[in-house]
């Protein structure tokens, strides 16, 4: 279970204010209440909303979100509780007495209609010109309550300027309903704390520190706020127009790489249940849209494993054999740009723990405008490199000034899953009907190890599959049943695993020039950890700072988003733990069905080292193109 009860939320909003009994079957563990004259028995402390949901009684909500602590501010879920003078917010009312509840009395219905009317009166703009048209909770509520006119008028002038300062996230306060889901997401779910309500009364609005533009505060661009915004007040900075332009320009060679998570989720945008993998249908759609080539980011995920894994082995070697005390351990993964920026802001003294390996997106970018251009005799300045990602922070990442090692901006456009779905629709394509097609060469192969990068624990599992084979010479599938490294899978906020290395094998050719033998790791225990969601990352980092158990780890995977990339800020809306689990299942199922499941066995990878990265993993060429450095940012805001 992801923990809903984080530290920084104001006490008054902690969800489990009334703790539920551990064993509801014990005496006093349950309570019987009447909902609409029907008797139902629920565990003590269950909220009215939960009780209703379990009994198929629909209560409209707006500020409530499954992932978040309570707010009780929209007042849409109000119900009548017998004996109370006022209505109660079902989402925040824990049942501790045998109350009688009415969920749809005239008073209740009138109140809900009033709330919707009031919100609409201040909701600037029209639905048809909104990014969330047809996927907006306010719009749905208006429909549900039969709104046909603006009872209390409709705002005609914008009240706020749009904040489009960020590469990733746009804030349009005129669409904001002040449900504060974004605030709770930022401070409670993610423990970043960039957003808060500012001002009082009618002037209340969601703002940043001193109302600065989002680009100037410590926002990590994770976009989790977008995923939980019920309206169009928060959305990614769209770049599909630029991509259409490039596609329509015959002088441009437009390529796109696709990350694993969008495939596991994009079906949701086309009405499919979560958990359908659309990889090969998506390839066809992308070709039909007009992309000149479609590549699999899993290829560079494999490359990341080789580079990052080698880097880890080198760090261990230097620390254990050379006794070099300047070596920073544990090594942290660096493929989640939200996490990277989080660390740069919140734990800047630890940036050297980050693997210098670029993220798969950025590695691909660097290769496309060098290796690929050379191979296909293309002018790199004419290549437009796009990436479809589950992520809003990838937009920021590709615009980092240092990400131009190819001589050009390595990746031109980061596109979210949602944006791609729109492009596909705009091209008149219904994705589920597409035939399958494959990725393009020369990067046509990708392993299951790269694929599972999409789920929390995936990078760690991929690394373990390779590193353990490198060191022991044993097959990963002989060590882990079905090659599934179960201890690092699953949705626990923080996972920890130890792997004892009791025998070693020969050093594989690929890295022979770097380590003479493995004798020095014989008998050692490899300690690894995985954290997803920056709130969990914070726990691990605080533990490391205090010299706790995690400071003894060798390698830690961090992902900014709950669930990993599949829960990223660019993924289809809505999100909740159930949806994220289904996406994870889709990813793991696809991996299980693949022949090729280890990064180092990927023939395209082997070929790339042979043809282009000729001095091997972490060699000069790799260093120039595939590795990067970080910025010590801190929390100071100018």
């Amino acid at each position: 279970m992801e923990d809903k009860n984080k530290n920084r939320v104001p006490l008054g909003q902690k969800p489990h204010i009334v703790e539920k009994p551990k064993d509801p079957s014990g005496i006093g563990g349950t309570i019987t209440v009447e909902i609409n004259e029907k008797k139902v028995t629920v565990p003590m402390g269950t909220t009215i909303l939960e009780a209703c949901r379990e009994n198929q009684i629909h209560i409209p909500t707006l500020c409530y979100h499954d992932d978040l602590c309570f707010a009780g501010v929209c007042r849409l879920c109000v119900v009548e509780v017998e004996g109370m003078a006022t209505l109660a917010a079902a989402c925040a009312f824990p049942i501790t007495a045998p109350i009688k509840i009415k969920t749809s009395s005239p008073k209740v219905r009138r109140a809900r209609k009033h709330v919707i009317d009031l919100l609409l009166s201040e909701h600037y703009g029209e639905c048809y010109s909104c990014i969330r048209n047809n996927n907006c909770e306010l719009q749905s509520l208006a429909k549900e309550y039969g709104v046909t006119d603006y009872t209390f008028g409709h705002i005609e002038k914008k009240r706020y300027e749009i904040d489009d300062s960020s590469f990733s996230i746009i804030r349009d306060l005129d669409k904001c309903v002040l449900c504060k889901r974004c605030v709770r997401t930022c401070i409670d779910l993610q423990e970043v704390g960039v957003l808060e309500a500012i001002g009082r009364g009618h002037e209340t609005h969601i703002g940043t520190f001193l109302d600065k533009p989002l680009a100037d505060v410590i926002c990590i661009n994770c976009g989790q706020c977008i995923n939980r915004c019920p309206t169009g007040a928060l959305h990614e900075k769209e770049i599909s127009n630029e991509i259409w332009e490039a596609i329509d320009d015959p002088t441009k060679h437009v390529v796109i790489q696709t990350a694993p998570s969008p495939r596991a989720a994009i079906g949701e945008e086309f009405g499919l249940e979560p958990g359908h993998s659309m990889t090969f249908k998506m390839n066809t759609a992308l070709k039909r849209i007009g992309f000149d080539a479609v590549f699999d980011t899993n290829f560079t995920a494999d490359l990341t494993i080789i580079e990052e894994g080698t880097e880890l082995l080198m760090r261990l070697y230097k620390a254990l054999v050379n006794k070099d005390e300047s070596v920073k351990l544990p090594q942290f993964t660096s493929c989640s740009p939200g996490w990277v920026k989080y660390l740069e802001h919140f734990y800047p003294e630890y940036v050297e723990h980050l693997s210098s390996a670029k993220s798969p997106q950025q590695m691909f970018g660097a290769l496309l405008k060098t290796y690929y251009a050379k191979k296909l005799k293309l002018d790199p300045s004419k290549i437009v490199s796009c990436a479809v990602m589950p992520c809003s922070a990838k937009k920021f990442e590709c615009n980092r000034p240092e990400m131009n090692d190819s001589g050009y901006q390595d990746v031109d456009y980061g596109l979210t899953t949602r944006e791609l779905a729109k492009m596909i629709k705009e091209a008149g394509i219904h994705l589920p009907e597409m035939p399958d097609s494959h990725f393009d060469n020369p990067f046509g192969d990708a392993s299951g190890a790269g694929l599972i990068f999409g789920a929390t624990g995936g990078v760690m599992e991929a690394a373990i599959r390779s590193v353990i084979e490198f060191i022991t010479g044993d097959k990963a599938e002989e060590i882990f049943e079905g090659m599934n490294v179960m201890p690092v899978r699953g949705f626990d906020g923080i996972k920890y695993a130890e792997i004892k290395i009791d025998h070693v094998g020969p050093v594989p050719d690929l890295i022979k020039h770097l380590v003479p033998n493995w004798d020095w790791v014989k008998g050692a225990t490899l300690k690894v950890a995985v954290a997803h969601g920056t709130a969990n990352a914070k726990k691990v980092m605080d533990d490391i700072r205090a010299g706790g158990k995690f400071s003894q780890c060798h390698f830690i995977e961090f992902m900014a988003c709950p669930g990993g990339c599949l829960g990223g800020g660019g993924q289809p809306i809505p999100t909740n733990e159930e949806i994220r689990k289904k996406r994870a299942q889709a990813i793991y199922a696809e991996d299980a069905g693949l022949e090729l499941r280890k990064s180092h066995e990927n023939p395209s990878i082997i070929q790339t080292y042979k043809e282009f990265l000729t001095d091997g993993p972490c060699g000069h060429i790799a260093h120039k193109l595939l590795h990067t450095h970080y910025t010590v940012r801190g929390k100071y805001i100018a």
Partner: protein
Amino acid sequence: MENKIERKGQVIFSGYKYGEGIKKALKLSPQDILFELRESKLRGRGGAGFPTSTKWMLTAATLDPEKYLICNADEGEPGTFKDRVLLTEYFNLVFDGMVIGGYTIKAKYGILYLRGEYKYMVPDIEAHLEKMRKDNLLGKSILGKEDFNFDIEIRLGTGAYICGEETALIESLEGSRGEARNRPPFPVNRGYMGKPSSVNNVETFANIPFIVMKGGKWYSKLGTEKSTGTKLFSVSGDCEKPDVYELPWGTKVSELLELVGAKNTKAVQVGGASGQCIPKSQFDRMLAYEDLSTGGSIKIFNESRNMLHILKNFMEFFVEESCGQCVPCRVGNVKLLEGTEMLLKGEFTFEYINKLKELGRTMKIASKCGLGQSSPNPFLSILENFKDEVFNQGMEE
């Protein structure tokens, strides 16, 4: 600022010797005090009128060893200034009352949440608390009672009306934005720092020493059956003697008007901005929880006043002072203000005004806290009680 007290009644202003109440209280058990309190039928003076004995009993009954007793001195209700009088001239009563409260509910910490505008009082209050500490009426082992430690800390508000609402006050104390919490849980179970807390008004505390000294029975004989004791009224507006008056509950509005020298009175707003506005025809109603309830504010308006101007003033106050978190209050008050402006211009339809009245009734039951639940009161009562006047404006001009 100069305080004026026009009428001293039988309780608060009847004279009290510093420390007396605490001495008496410590000879009793907390249960005894709760018993007297229940007998007295004292109800909270902050506006809501919740029985003080119940609140203290609930706080006392919790098992948590860490509890807080909070004195609500935010006094933000427009037209209320009786807590100021108590805190500048009668802090004896207030702090003795708090110490007795601390003893009764077994709290170690008392907090005085003082309105930011009252900052100037801090040196005097600090000096008084220091004196109490020297006299062993505050601090460790009070009056030699070994296991009774209780001290009081002053914390300043920053001028938001909402922070007088007890759960918003607690949020503010915790360093968060002043916003009301969801209830339940109530502060008596989970309040400041998640610990059981009793929040009481300044005047409520001021009554306590007398109840301890003279007994609950004595107290309950003052006032009416359901509203016992006396009340401090802050009287302002069109009258000769706008001051603080201590009068028994049950006093009629007309009696009060005479006492304060009000002439040609058209309307009386009872209970501050969120109270009710009554016309002449209702001046024989009484000031009591069961009839016209008030935290103390009485505003008098004479024939020269325009009721819509008064209403507009109130609604502007609420539009600004709503904490902005819940929809009915944040947006609802804006709509009621707009409606008032329409009435002022004479540009309205009855159909729309009726919709606004309906909205007002929703706000009263659907808002998250007392602010939004009571802010429609002036709108609803002025439109109801002054029909002829409010629906005929704009047209004359």
